[in-house]
């Protein structure tokens, strides 16, 4: 309490400093509070009410939580989301690492920047555009991918229209969009590793493989953790790609928690249930991020 008073009526140089700092961050804080925090709180409160806007709204305590968390459709959506995560996140991180390692080894700086730009390009376009471009590639009759399969004598695949293939197909779009971004992060980290380390390692008789495993990867650990968390958050929250293509179909096979949330709020008009799902998403992401941070963050010093 004393501290806050001293901010309002600073008595020392240090107090003035602290007040200045607070003033600098104030615009951002106020903005985020108004635009995100307040609506979020309103949504959370809404999860305890049976809301029918324009109609009545009744406090129902945890009943909506019970209803949503025992609904098989909800858990199907969670399972779809998790399976999508398992397909996208490791693939993105692993591919980004491999590409970054490959780019790092290139001698020519010009080649490196050209290829890097090409990998990064998908990140620059809107998710809607990306989704539509891929939907066109995936078209069962006239799409390019089935044309390729035809050329090598294989039967056409149903991509976005098949129950089994819709999630992998969507995962591919996500990987395509995010690959360049993660590659650049890894590439920069690789370039920051002093070459003396590698020289020392080769003097010690380490092979390239061993150097990679024992030296490079541990040093990249902070970036790997960070990228994995970012990819987890992104893939969990992704909406535009599914919305522009399958809208959760076929037969709910690509219905993620976010798509279900959207339908629950805006198609079925059950805002209370949707708020419960929103809280679920927020808490899940928070827990996963914290767990990742704790478990895998190891400081590596040499």
């Amino acid at each position, binding site marked *: 309490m004393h501290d806050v008073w001293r901010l309002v009526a600073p008595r020392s140089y240090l107090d003035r400093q602290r007040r200045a700092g607070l003033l600098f961050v104030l615009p951002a804080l106020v903005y985020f509070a108004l635009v995100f925090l307040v609506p979020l709180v309103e949504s959370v409160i809404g999860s305890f009410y049976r809301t029918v*806007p*324009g109609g009545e709204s009744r406090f129902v305590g945890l009943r909506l939580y019970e209803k949503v968390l025992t609904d098989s459709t909800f858990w199907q959506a969670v399972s779809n989301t998790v399976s999508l995560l398992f397909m996208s996140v490791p693939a993105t991180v692993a591919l980004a690492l491999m590409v970054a390692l490959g780019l790092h080894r290139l001698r020519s700086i010009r080649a490196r920047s050209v290829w890097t730009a090409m990998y990064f390009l998908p990140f620059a376009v809107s998710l809607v555009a990306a989704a539509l471009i891929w939907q066109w590639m995936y*078209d069962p009759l006239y799409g390019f991918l089935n044309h390729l399969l035809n050329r090598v004598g294989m039967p*056409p695949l149903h991509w976005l229209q098949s129950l089994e293939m819709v999630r992998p197909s969507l995962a591919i779009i996500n990987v395509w969009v995010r690959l360049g971004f993660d590659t650049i992060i890894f590439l920069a980290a690789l370039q920051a590793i002093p070459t003396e380390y590698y020289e020392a390692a080769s003097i010690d008789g380490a092979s390239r493989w061993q150097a990679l495993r024992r030296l490079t990867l541990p040093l990249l650990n902070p970036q790997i953790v960070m990228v994995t968390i970012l990819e987890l958050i992104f893939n969990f929250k992704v909406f535009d790609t599914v919305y522009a293509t399958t809208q959760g*179909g076929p037969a709910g096979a690509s219905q993620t928690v976010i798509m279900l949330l959207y339908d629950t709020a805006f198609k079925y008009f059950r805002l209370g249930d949707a708020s419960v799902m929103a809280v679920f998403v927020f808490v899940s992401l928070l827990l996963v991020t914290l767990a990742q941070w704790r478990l895998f963050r190891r400081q590596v010093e040499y």
Partner: protein
Amino acid sequence: MRSRIVCAVAAGVAVLTLALAPPTAWTQPKKLVFWTHWEQNPEFNKFYETRGKDFAQKSGYEVQVVTVPYQGYEAKYLAALVGKSGAPDIFMGMTHHWCGQYDFCDRMPADLAKTWDDSLPKYMVSVGKWKGVRYGTPIEHGNFQQMYINTETFKKAGLDPDKPPKTLDDWLAAMKKLTVLDAKGEPTQVGFALRHKGHPVGIADKFLPFAHAYGARMLSPNLERATGFANSPEMVAALQFYADLVQKHKVASLVFPTPEDAFGQKRAATIFRESWYFGWVKKNAPEVSFKVYALPCAKACPGAGNLFPWTNMVYKNSASKPAAWDFIRFISNAKDDLDQHQAQGILPVWTANLDSAYVKARPDYQSTQEMLKQPVPPEYYHPKSNELATAFGEAVVAALYGKGQPKPLLDEAAAKMDRALKD
């Protein structure tokens, strides 16, 4: 250097502030804002603006039509109607949602309601009403599916395009003759263009004629229960028939992306679609020669049913409510009805127009008359129709994809629907 940067920033800020300033209330003509999501019918929508100009001479109110993309229109409607300003004065949607589940609609003035009750065909009178009170005006007639056949393919398969199949069994036999497979066993032409993609509500909508033909119904007559109806033996039989089209007889394919495209590209010989479709075919696939017939019957006839009774409603909290109703009154006559629907090539709504020269000249005139004579099939105008139809449609899609057997899928769907109804 620094001062130049300051100047540039200041100039930028000034320009942006000017550009971003909310429009001040200059004297603008008063207008009624009309929201519709019928993006595929631009001529129809423009009619409101054209007539609005005439209306403005009388009342001082013009009409501005805003076309909201169909995908996600619920979100936009909901967000707008909940807040009080920025909402439309008149909007197009389903009465049982916006007036039933929510309370966004204004009651139609009694004299206007009577006009409409008297002018609509019997089966449409309930469209636009909730609990017996009229809130909205129907805008689509012929919103029920009919059978379009590609006459060329019929002739090639040795079938007479002037003698279409009248029963589902005959129809299936014809479908088998119309399906052509290539050397690898993949279909190059199928008998029936099937909707299997997209939101489950649309898929349920396309399946319902088959369900009704088998004498089944999705909900109980008072719309309060699903179990015993959505999973009745008749419904299971209907879904089995439908799924067999793909899985067993292979007269329909899950490969072709949209049924409309398939029919338009002559890859499917028949499609069940509403009356607006022939306008689409004439425009986008003019080489397709087709005929329109009533849907084949089985135990019962599918009749004129639909899941999407689109109506125009007036927003309860609109500041220009009286003007809005005046405008609707202004266009509530047989001539406007005919002109507007003719502009887009769809069927007019007023009974008086159903015998006009325009309608008589349409390829679906006979079939429409025939289907209207059949008993009205079950209607499902319930506030939660979206959710119910989604659960039902999911079962249909799963059956089509062979993800399970009709009976257990329908049992599960009925349970889900009952849960939603009980809420």
